[in-house]
């Protein structure tokens, strides 16, 4: 067999075929090279054997389908991204911008100092009066209410600011609220639907997500999904609603899939979402 190779392969040597076999099977060669290879295969049985095996192995290799990661990969990624955006923002607001916007900072500082005092007060209260009688408990809960009220008013004020980092800061306060009231939800929804900055809208979406146990909030997220045109927000909202298993979202998500303007990537997320909701 070895001898017959040598005799027959005047045009092409077996080693040359080795170099070209993969490109040939991939259809990447010039016409002349193809003809040369085919000629060689007609005369060299050993190469033909190898060729057939290669063909089969490569067919199976390329026939293997991609596996699909489960949806938690995406959800975890968006949570991580959100955390990073927030961390990044915190560095941004406490660092460089302090000098460029002295007035705000004094303002923000004052709010922060207010928090610090109240929290200290609350803590001292807790430590000193852990013996507790009713009136002291009332005092403590009053303090807590004051903190909450202060946070809320800081949020409303900061949301009106021109700088988007101030507005995002405002949404951080919303994150700290334990229970939202109507006004808070209303302004968060308004921010989600109308703020001109996508990062602010995204922060609003995540702030609302915390209160998604309330049906009102869920409903407004569903409504917002129909309004959002930004792919990042579409994906964020779909993820939040899918995580909540909110079946009311199905219709809005389907509409996104049908919309010609929707990005393929978003459609993909939407289709996966639907699968999990149905």
């Amino acid at each position, binding site marked *: 067999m070895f001898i017959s190779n040598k005799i027959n392969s005047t045009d092409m040597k077996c080693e040359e075929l080795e170099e070209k076999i993969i490109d040939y099977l991939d259809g990447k060669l010039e016409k002349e090279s193809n003809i040369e290879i085919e000629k060689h295969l007609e005369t060299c049985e050993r190469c033909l054997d190898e060729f057939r095996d290669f063909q089969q192995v490569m067919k199976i*290799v390329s026939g293997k389908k991609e596996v699909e990661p489960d949806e938690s990969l995406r959800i975890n990624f968006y949570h991580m991204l959100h955390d990073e955006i927030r961390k990044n923002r915190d560095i941004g607001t406490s660092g460089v911008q302090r000098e460029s916007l002295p007035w705000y900072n004094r303002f923000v500082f004052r709010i922060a100092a207010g928090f610090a005092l109240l929290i200290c007060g609350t803590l001292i209260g807790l430590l000193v009066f852990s013996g507790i009688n009713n009136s002291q408990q009332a005092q403590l809960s009053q303090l807590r209410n004051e903190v909450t009220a202060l946070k809320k008013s800081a949020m409303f004020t900061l949301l009106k600011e021109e700088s988007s980092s101030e507005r995002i800061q405002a949404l951080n306060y919303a994150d700290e609220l334990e229970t939202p009231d109507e006004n808070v939800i209303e302004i968060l929804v308004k921010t989600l639907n109308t703020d001109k900055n996508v990062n602010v809208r995204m922060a609003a979406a995540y702030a609302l997500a915390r209160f998604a146990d309330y049906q009102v909030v869920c409903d407004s997220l569903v409504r917002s999904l129909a309004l959002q045109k930004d792919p990042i927000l579409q994906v964020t909202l779909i993820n939040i609603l899918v995580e909540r298993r909110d079946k009311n979202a199905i219709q809005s998500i389907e509409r996104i899939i049908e919309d010609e303007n929707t990005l393929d990537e978003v459609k993909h997320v939407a289709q996966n979402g639907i699968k999990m909701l149905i």
Partner: protein
Amino acid sequence: MKEKNKTVQNIPDEKIMENVKEGKLSEMSVLFERYHRKLYNFFFRMGLDRDISKDLTQNLFYRIIKYRKTYKEGASVKSWIYQIARNLHSDYRNTEKRTGDIFVTSSIYPTDIAETQDSYLEEDYEKLDTALMTLSDAQRELLVLSRYQGLKYEEISSIVNQSVPAIKVSIYRAIRQLRCVYFKQN
């Protein structure tokens, strides 16, 4: 309508990465949507299980965000991402070795393999997986990059830092070895 799609989809990875570097972190989601499936499959085809593949994919995007400042403008984002993927994979293999927790090895060979049939069935794929496990990490990596990830030889060349001809030879050898193991099983 298609035009709108095009404009968004046509933004090159490099432009997006530059924006991320400048602090527009939310744009990472575009890269995530473009690459996460491929990368998950990269880890999976390198022989890791689904959970670990998922963790490493997640980790990879975290690294990109964390080290975004080290991205060199103009450099191929795709190559960069795959370089990180390779590092994560080899880091993982190293800790695995150190902890003595030996993962997928040849010991998972199916004991008896059904006869071959004309169409490609589960068994064929199983046989192929078995054969894949006999390759070295480096060989498997080249095969996965070129066959499963669909990268061009030039792209692989910049990722693994080898010349295109050298890569071609390695892939040829890898497939030849697959062939031997695969057909010996009959």
